[in-house]
C-alpha cells in the first residue's frame, strides 16, 4: 500500500538521517522523496510502499525522535474519500497552475521541486479525478498526525 509521510524538523539534518535509516532498517520502498528548507528547519515528504503496521511504527518512531517537530502519515485512498492530494509534476507544468486555480480554497501543505501536497475542500473531490488525466495525482487521507489541524499554506513552500 502507498503511504505519504511528511516530516517537519528543526535545522539539524540528523532527523532526516534517522528517517532514511529507519526506512532502510524496515525495508521501506521509497517511491518519491523531497526535501524543502524552511527558515528554521526542513520539511520532508516521502511516498513509500509498506504495510500499515509498519507505518504505525514509523509514525511513533518519528514522533519521539529529537529534532522532529511534526509528523503526519497519509494513506492512498479512493478519490471520493480523499481530503488531500499529492501532485507530482514538472514544477513549471501548466497543469499544476490549473489545478491550483481549480481549487482556490485548498491549502498547500508541502511544495518542493514539483511535489505539491494539498488539503482540498470536500466538494472538490470529483474535480480532482477529472484533473488527474494529464497530471500524476495521488489522492490521500490523513490517518496519523501530530498536528490536530491542517497547517496553513506556506509550509515548506519556498519552491512554489
Amino acid at each position, binding site marked *: 500500500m502507498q503511504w505519504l509521510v511528511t516530516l517537519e524538523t528543526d535545522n*539539524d539534518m*540528523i532527523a532526516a*538521517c534517522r528517517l532514511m*535509516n529507519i526506512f532502510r532498517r524496515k525495508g521501506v520502498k521509497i517511491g518519491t522523496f523531497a526535501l524543502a528548507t524552511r527558515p528554521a528547519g526542513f520539511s520532508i515528504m516521502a511516498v513509500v510502499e509498506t504495510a500499515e503496521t509498519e507505518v504505525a511504527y514509523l509514525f*511513533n*518512531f518519528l*514522533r*519521539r525522535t529529537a529534532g522532529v517537530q511534526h509528523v503526519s502519515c497519509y494513506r492512498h485512498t479512493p478519490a471520493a474519500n480523499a481530503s488531500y492530494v499529492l501532485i507530482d509534476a514538472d514544477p513549471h507544468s501548466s497543469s499544476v497552475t490549473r489545478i491550483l486555480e481549480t481549487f482556490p480554497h485548498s491549502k498547500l501543505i508541502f511544495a518542493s521541486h514539483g511535489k505539491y501536497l494539498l488539503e482540498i475542500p470536500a466538494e472538490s473531490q470529483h474535480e480532482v479525478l477529472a484533473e488527474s488525466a494529464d497530471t500524476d495525482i495521488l489522492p490521500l487521507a490523513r490517518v496519523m498526525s501530530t498536528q490536530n489541524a491542517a497547517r496553513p499554506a506556506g509550509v515548506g513552500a519556498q519552491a512554489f
Partner: protein
Amino acid sequence: MGKALSGSEILLESLHRQGVRVVFGLPGGVVLPLYDALYSAGIGHLLVRHEQAAAFAADGYARATGTPGVCLATSGPGATNLITALTSAMMDSIPVVALTGQVPAHLVGKDAFQEADTIGISMPSTKRSFLVRSAAEIPQIIHAAFKTAVSGRPGPVLVDLPKTVFLDRAEAVYLTPSPAPPEQVQEWTEADIKAAAELIVDSRRAVLYVGGGVISSNAADELRQFAEMTHIPVTTTLMGLGAFPSRHPLSLGMLGMHGSYATNQAICNCDLLVAVGARFDDRVTGRLDGFATRSKKIHIDVDPAEVNKNVAVDLGLVGDARETLAALVAELKRAPRTPAHAERQQWLQRIETWRAEHPLTYDHYASTVKPQYVIETLAHYADERAIVAVDVGQHQMWAAQFYKMTYPRTWLSSSGLGSMGYGFPAAMGAQMAFPDRQVIAIVGDGGFQMTLNDLATAVQYRVPVKIAIINNRALGMVRQWQELFFEKRYCDIDLNFAPDFVKLAESYGIRAARVEHRTDVVDAVRDFLSDREPRLVDFWVDPAENVYPIIPPGASLAEMVVEPPRFVAEEEEVLDDLWAV
C-alpha cells in the same frame, strides 16, 4: 567585553553549571587540550581502563541519582567503545551525556588518525547527538544536551567536539536556568483521567504493571498511594524493581519470562491491567496473542510512541507517571464510587493461592552453594538502602527474584539491551555518586571477565564497591537454554578456563575470598560487607542450577514452565537456621 576563554574552559564551566561533579573517562590524542584544562578545573575525573566502563559508570551514576551521568572519550576507538553502553542507556531510558573528541575540524572526512564518524555511529544509540563547530556554541549545546537527556523520556545524548573547538577562544554566553530543567509532557485531559478512574472503579481483578518510568519520574510515593488506595496488586518489570517495596502485601514481584507463577497467573486472569512507565517488552508479554487477553488496559507513559506500540490498549494517558498517578489519586478521591474492597480482597486471596501452589523457591538443603541462597544472604546482611548493580544472565534473574528491593534507584541493571559487563562499572558509577552507601555488584563469571580490568580503577580511587561473583564456570543462561531448548547440545559455554579471581583481585590489591561450601556463605558475606574498601568474593555456585519459572521462547505467560516445588514448607526456618550460624 568578557574574557575570551578556550573551548576546553568553556566546556568545563558549562558542565559545572549543569551540576556535574564527576566525569568518567579515558584521555587520548584529540582530547588532550580538555584534559589539560581539567587538571585544575575542580571537576572530578575517574580514569577507567576501557571507555565502555566509563559509559556504564555514567549510566550507574544516572540510575542511582536521577541526574545525568557524564562520560568522556577520545575520538575514533574511544568513541566507538562507548557505543554499547550508550545503546543500553537508550534502551533503558537513562540520561547519560557522552562527550567525545573529534579530529580537528579541517581534517573531518579525510580519514585522519583516530577519526570515526561518531555522529553517524551514535545516531541510533542516542536520543540526540550534537557536533560542535565553534567554541562559542558550547554553552548552548551543552545546555541543550542536558535538557534533552532529562526531558520527556530520558536517554543518552552525545556531544562530539573537534580538537580545534577545544583550542578556539571565545567569549562564552551561558544559558539559564542551569541545570537545564526537563520539559514536561502531558497530553491527557481531565476527561481521560475520569475515564481511567471509571475503569479502575469498575474493575474487580486489576493489576498494576510498573516499569522503569515510575523510577525515572520519581513516582514511587504516588504509586504506593494509588495501590494502597485502590487495593490493586503491583507487579514490576526488571526495570521497575524498587519502584514498589517488594515486601509490601500488594507486591507481586516481577512478571514475565522469569516472573513468578502467581504474578503471571494474575496477568492472565486480570480484568484490568494498568501499565505505568512500562513498554510491554517481549520478555514481559511472551507471545502477544496470549497476553492479558481477559483485561482492559490503561497505559500511562511519557512517551506517546509507546502507547499501542506492542499491545493495543483501551486508554492511553500520555504524561509524566508521577503527575498522572497524582491526578488519578485525586480523581478517585473525588469519585462518588470507590473500588469494591471485598472483591479486591477475593482477588488478592486468589493470587495468594497461586503463590502457595508455586512459590519462588530452591533447594535449601543442597550440599552445593545455591546461587539463590547467596543472593538472599547478601540481601539479608546488606543495608536496606544498599545499591545493587547486576550484570546479565542467570545471576541477574536470581537477584531480581530473591533480592527484595525496597527503594527506587537501588537496583541497576542493563535490562533492555542486556549487556554483559555492565554490573561492575555501573556499581562504581553509583558509588561515586553515593560514597557513603553500600554498593554491591552482583556479577556472573562471564560478564565480570568483560570489564574486570577496571578493578584497577576501583583500587586507584578507593571506590569501595563490593563484588560478588556468582561463579558457575559457564555462560549459565546460554547453558540453560541449550539444556532446555537445544537438547543439551552444549556449545561453547564452558568458562572453566578463567583466571583465579581471588588471586587476580589480590594482584590489584583487593582483599578477596572464595566460597565453595554453603556453610561458609554467611561469614563470607558478613566479612565482605564489613568495611569501606573494595572487596571481592568468588562464590562457586551449583553449575547445574537453572532459573525457574521460565516461559519458553514463543510461548505465552500461561505456558510457563514451573519447576516442581521441592521444599515449600519450612523455608523461613531453614534460612533462619543458616543465618544464625
